[in-house]
């Protein structure tokens, strides 16, 4: 069966001149679960697939906003303020007479960009730090661990607020600050898995053959932590979205009149007190559904595997 699998796998043709270590490396690579669609679907389960569908829908909404939004998200009319939902305005209009549905569709853009920046920066920082620490070990590892300990001392939101206080309110500032705050959590997970890999005999034998540490790390250790990186990114996305929305709610993130879900919840607060619930509730639900979808997918990707390993 392994023979068959090796034949199908393009990278696995073990030619005669390969050294034992290279063969070991290749073999090990094949042990990494292949991310086929069927495997993914099985791991996600029905609810996970629905969640994945929701994520795809939100992303599509963001990309196609100019095409599918029925109205201009910035243009309102004074005569059409606080309209209830109708065929003309499926989610009604806000305090400035703007179409809420259109603003939610456009809002998907800003609401997704922030978390995307956060998870990309987090993944880059955490992976770099973790792999550097693991490869060099000793003092480098200790130094990086101390650095992360200090970052652990700051609640994420506080870090973001401090950054905004220093550099002024902006989505980019808040996102980068949050990413720095998320880094120690992700780095710790990646480090522990990478450390296990680093201590496997094939790494030592590759090292003995004079393959550079950078090459071994990138080519062989990195692929083995990609599950952790991906899971972390999926789970962090949801948290980042909530925290960035909170910052926008406080007026410290996205600035009006840009359509953004967090900002819309905040804008709708006054209307809500008067009974016009549409803006806050629809924008809030958009956040809840998107975050829940990301959370569930992340949980299924990482959680199942983790619990399966301990058993």
């Amino acid at each position: 069966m392994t023979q068959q699998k090796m034949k199908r796998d393009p990278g696995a043709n073990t030619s005669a001149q390969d050294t034992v270590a290279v063969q070991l490396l290749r073999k090990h690579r094949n042990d990494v679960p292949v991310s086929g669609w069927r495997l993914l679907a099985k791991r996600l389960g029905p609810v996970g697939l629905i969640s994945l569908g929701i994520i795809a829908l939100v992303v599509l909404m963001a990309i196609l906003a100019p095409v599918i939004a029925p109205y201009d998200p910035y243009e309102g009319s004074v005569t059409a303020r606080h309209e209830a939902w109708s065929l003309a305005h499926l989610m009604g209009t806000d305090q400035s007479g703007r179409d809420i549905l259109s603003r939610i569709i456009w809002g998907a853009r800003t609401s997704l960009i922030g978390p995307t920046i956060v998870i990309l920066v987090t993944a880059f920082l955490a992976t770099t730090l973790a792999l550097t620490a693991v490869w060099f070990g000793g003092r480098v590892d200790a130094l990086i661990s101390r650095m992360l300990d200090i970052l652990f001392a700051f609640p994420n939101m506080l870090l973001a607020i401090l950054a905004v206080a220093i550099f002024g309110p902006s989505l980019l500032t808040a996102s980068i600050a949050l990413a720095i705050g998320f880094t120690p959590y992700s780095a710790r997970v990646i480090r522990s898995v990478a450390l296990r890999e680093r201590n496997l005999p094939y790494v030592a034998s590759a090292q003995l053959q004079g393959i550079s540490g950078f090459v071994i790390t990138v080519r062989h250790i990195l692929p083995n932590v990609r599950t952790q990186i991906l899971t972390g990114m999926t789970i962090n996305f949801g948290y980042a979205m909530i925290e960035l929305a909170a910052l926008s709610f406080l007026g410290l993130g996205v600035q009006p009149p840009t359509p953004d879900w967090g900002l819309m919840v905040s804008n709708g607060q006054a209307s809500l007190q008067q009974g016009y619930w549409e803006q806050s509730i629809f924008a809030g639900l958009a956040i809840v559904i998107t975050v829940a979808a990301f959370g569930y997918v992340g949980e299924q990707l990482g959680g199942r595997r983790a619990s399966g390993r301990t058993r």
Partner: protein
Amino acid sequence: MTYVLKRLGALAAVLVVSSFIVFSGMYLAPGSPEQFLVQGRTVSPEVLASIRAQYGLDDPFLIRYWNWLMDVLQGDLGRSLLTQQDVSALVASRLPTTLFLAAFAAILITVLGVGLGVLAATRSGAFEKLVVFGSNLGFAVPTFFAALVLMFVFGSNLGWFPVSGSGEGFADRLWHLTLPAIALAFPGIAVVARITRTAVREEQGSEHVIMAIARGVPKQFVLWRHTIRNSMLPVTTVLGTNIAGLLASAFVIEYAFTLDGIGSLLVNSVQKKDFAVVQAIALIMVLAFGLINLIVDLLYAVIDPRVRLSKGAAAR
């Protein structure tokens, strides 16, 4: 004991570095520190002089930090750049609301989160499914959204609870802070309930629990002494992180409900660019965050003998 001292030492070291970061942060800002502190406001020369004196802008950088740190250690957090109020006094007057709110939410998270999780794990069927579904969705509810919905439903519509202000005296305060505390606790309850359920379920299948059943130990003893007691070990950690995080997320809730805690003070100060107040509150939050995390770790060592012993005398 050495373990406790070691952890305290580590906390102190982290706090010193954090204070340095909080202090030096403003020098990262574009423009001169003076410009940053004044932020384009028109100020009289006297005020400018006092700002220069407060931040020791004429001294070398490290001396400035040292003096500032010494002042902070003596409880002198400087003066507000806007109102010239004493920051320590300002923060002290705001602290009770935040502490009350955080403690209230912590109790809700502990009681409801653990309670729902245990109930879900021990009563299979519809209730368990409901809790699983609720916790999957609940963690995704931003606190500020929960706040608005609660305000709308129980405040404006039903009129059961006030939607702003923090009240006087214990009972009134409890009444005023009920909705904010629920909103603040909401995601935490969801997360803790989910972890608790998983932990209890896992413990139900553990060897020693099955052994206890096989030995004919009565159900209630198995449930409380073995299943629930042991499943609380992983729950403690999650509970701790969630409670420690409360102080930092409280400012969103305080802002939404216009409560006079340090959180809303922080947000207002950031909006008005009053960096002296921001620094002070950031420091207090880092301190509180560190202390709560430390307490949780120590608590863990108390309830799990394996941790206690491996950290103490190296028995095997």
